[in-house]
């Protein structure tokens, strides 16, 4: 039996085709995964199914929900379908909720407006719905406001809004991308459970093959607005027929880094007992400011040429540690030494010498490059750290060499950041870090914002650079697969402390600390998803 039948769906915007020849179907209780990289048209297809296309976009073909044709349907009919037939959950729960209404009121409003419930009945419906999504009134009052909830709880409220009227079809567009891995695992479990228990069809849209593989019974791979391959998840991923699917599967199965002997050399970077407190706003005029300890006696060592991973969820203190290591923040206690010398209180010349040894690449390639500068100027910025300030010719030569090392052309120095794609921008950021020939590069979620194919290219580049130059890395990431692929040793951070430390393979395969175990279990992994007895959401 088919609930949703999509045939030859196409979308054009101003005559330009964005989606073409999309055909698939979903049965009640079935989970279909729609996987694609950015720009593949996966979000657009969600909007097309719900009749929410942006102005100027035109849909062709056929989308039938329980036999009712939606393409070309009048707006009142579509509105009825959107309210009762199709529910949608988007990526960012913070923007999906009204900050001025309590969560109970928001869910009740949906029930009242689209479901025709009376005020009192809507309130009852809201309470029942919040309970369905794992927010029972006993634990989380319906009188709370969105800002009083965690990210995962907010996403549960967004799901409650979508399923309040028991839609036949739920579309979840990157529902867990903004969440931590443990929260992500919980939300995915909730979605799969809702689909199975309420016989609701679920279309799960994601860039993350591992996430989809863990939940979806069937999968469709989207590339450049077309489905290149679809079928049962296991069959498609174990024996991909299309070259693109094969590449995608390869990109999501990072090969573990080959073990390397530990170096006995003196540490390049050594932090001991670092404590960093943040003060909240003062309570009242004479009140004391509450103190939150972001780093609680953290010690880190990186030897020359060593590749060290630092994993943990948001709020664990990873970013604060990075800033303390770079000397951007002064810790309350503890020391940070680079090549045996402390940056704090160093004379300007000495500080430059030490800074030269440690450079950084940030996560967001759009925020880390000044949009007003040309690439040459951006890459050349750290050259002031070199002793005896190099002249113009020398600067140009070094910039060209750094650009060449990351696979860009010397002529790119004359272009501006906006002319480059995300992956190329990240290469520019790496070139900026390399231009002073540092010995350690701190990579702060440096590949997290990139699509899988770009991510594997950048990882390959980083491994090559490390091998060729004996470069050491401190690789900060929430993605255990990536850490596994790059690092020799891993530190696990929770609530401002290092809770586990050891060779990467050991930490990730035989975790000892409960938090590490939880992290490893929650991390989506393609291997594990395919090895599991059977994905959830299989139509019975």
């Amino acid at each position, binding site marked *: 039996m088919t609930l949703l039948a999509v045939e030859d769906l196409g979308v054009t915007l101003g005559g330009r085709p964005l989606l073409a020849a999309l055909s698939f179907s979903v049965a009640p209780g079935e989970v279909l995964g729609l996987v694609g990289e950015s720009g593949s048209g996966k979000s657009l297809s969600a909007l097309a199914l719900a009749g929410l296309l942006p102005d100027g976009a035109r849909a062709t073909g056929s989308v039938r929900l329980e036999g009712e044709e939606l393409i070309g349907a009048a707006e009142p009919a579509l509105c009825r379908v959107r309210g009762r037939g199709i529910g949608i959950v988007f990526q960012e729960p913070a923007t999906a909720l009204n900050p001025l209404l309590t969560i109970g009121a928001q869910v009740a409003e949906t029930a009242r407006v689209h479901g025709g419930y009376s005020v009192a009945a809507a309130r009852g419906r809201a309470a029942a719905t919040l309970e369905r999504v794992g927010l029972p009134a006993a634990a989380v009052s319906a009188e709370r406001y969105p800002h009083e909830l965690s990210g995962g709880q907010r996403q549960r409220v967004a799901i409650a809004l979508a399923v309040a009227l028991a839609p036949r079809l739920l579309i979840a567009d990157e529902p867990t991308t903004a969440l931590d891995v443990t929260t992500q695992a919980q939300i995915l479990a909730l979605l799969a459970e809702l689909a199975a228990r309420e016989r609701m069809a679920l279309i799960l849209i994601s860039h993350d093959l591992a996430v989809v593989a863990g939940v979806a019974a069937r999968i469709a791979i989207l590339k450049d607005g077309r489905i290149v391959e679809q079928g049962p998840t296991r069959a498609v991923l174990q024996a991909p027929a299309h070259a693109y699917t094969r590449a995608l599967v390869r990109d999501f199965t990072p090969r573990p880094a080959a073990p390397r002997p530990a170096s006995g050399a003196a540490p390049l970077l050594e932090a001991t007992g670092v404590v960093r407190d943040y003060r909240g706003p003062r309570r009242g005029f004479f009140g004391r400011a509450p103190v939150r300890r972001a780093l609680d006696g953290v010690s880190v060592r990186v030897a020359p040429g060593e590749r060290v991973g630092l994993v943990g969820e948001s709020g664990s203190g990873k970013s604060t540690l990075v*800033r303390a290591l*770079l000397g*951007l923040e002064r810790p309350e206690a503890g020391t940070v030494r680079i090549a045996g010398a402390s940056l704090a209180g160093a004379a300007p010349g000495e*500080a*430059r010498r030490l*800074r030269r040894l440690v*450079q*950084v690449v*940030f*996560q*967001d390639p759009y*925020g*880390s*490059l*000044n949009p*007003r500068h040309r690439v040459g100027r*951006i890459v050349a*910025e*750290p050259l*002031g*750290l070199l002793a005896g300030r190099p002249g113009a010719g020398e600067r140009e030569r070094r910039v060209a060499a750094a650009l060449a090392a990351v696979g860009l052309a010397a002529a790119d120095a004359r272009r501006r950041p*906006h002319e480059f794609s995300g992956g190329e921008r990240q290469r520019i*950021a790496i070139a*900026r870090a390399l231009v002073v020939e540092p010995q350690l590069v701190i990579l702060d979620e440096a590949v997290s914002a990139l699509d899988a194919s770009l991510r594997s290219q950048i990882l390959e580049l980083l491994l090559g650079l490390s091998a060729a130059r004996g470069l050491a890395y401190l690789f900060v990431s929430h993605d255990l697969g990536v850490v596994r692929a790059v690092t020799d040793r891993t530190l696990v951070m929770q609530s401002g402390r290092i809770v586990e430390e050891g060779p990467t393979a050991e930490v990730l395969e035989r975790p000892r600390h409960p938090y590490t175990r939880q992290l490893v279990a929650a991390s989506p992994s393609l291997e594990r998803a395919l090895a599991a007895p059977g994905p959830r959401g299989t139509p019975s």
Partner: protein
Amino acid sequence: MSGAAPRHGLAPGTAFGAAVIALYALVALASLTPLFDAGLALDVGARLAPPSARHWFGTDPLGRDVFAMVAVGARTSLAVAVGAVLLGMLAGTPLGLAAAARGGLTDELLARANDLLFAFPALLLAVLLSAALGPGALTAVIAIGVFNVPVFARLVRGSARALMTRDFVLAARIAGRGPLAIAFVHLLPNLAGLLLVQAAIQLSLGIAAEAGLSYVGLGAQPPAPSWGRMLNDAQTLVGTAPWLAWFPGLALAIAVLALGLLGDGLARLLDPRAAARRGP
């Protein structure tokens, strides 16, 4: 600039504002030449003449040409307002940058000083300054300019703090750039647009404030013509010679309106979201 296509080029309001301000500036510059000297000469025989081909805006009780007076008044108005904006920007921007960069006590002290200034009535300060320095155009510049300082300081502090958390500023610090270099290379170029918009808004407020001060006799002193004093002088004659109030009043209203439109238009033009709609 037909104004028919708001998506490309200037919106009609912005174009109008820019054109009017350009015209005012031109007239103010022209008043530096002897062009209007004849009009400003006393001619008691032609006193209180209504607008005509000879005297476009009519004449005042001393027979001076009102058009010439309004033109020269534009110079006074613009000079005082521009001076006040420059004072506010040149003092406020470094203060705002310092507050953003240093935080802590510096930030707190500057914030409280700003609050103090905001709470203080502007007219009172002007009276105080006049008593100390004597009334005049320079006094007006200082009195108005002092109140522009916190406006620019707050604007710069807020935006600079947001910019300083951006990764490219962190990257610059790691690249060993000092605070001054970061301010000039990374912060100010990214703040220039905002400063420009605020300058247009403060300019319009400054023109209105200058008129207010000279209306109560605390601005430019006679014989230098100014719109505020012309309005004051016209007060007792509104019944018999209404043009004495019309033209300086209109000149003032149009200047304030034009600058407001220009400020709005610039803000829209520089809004990154608007830029995204227009394409790179």
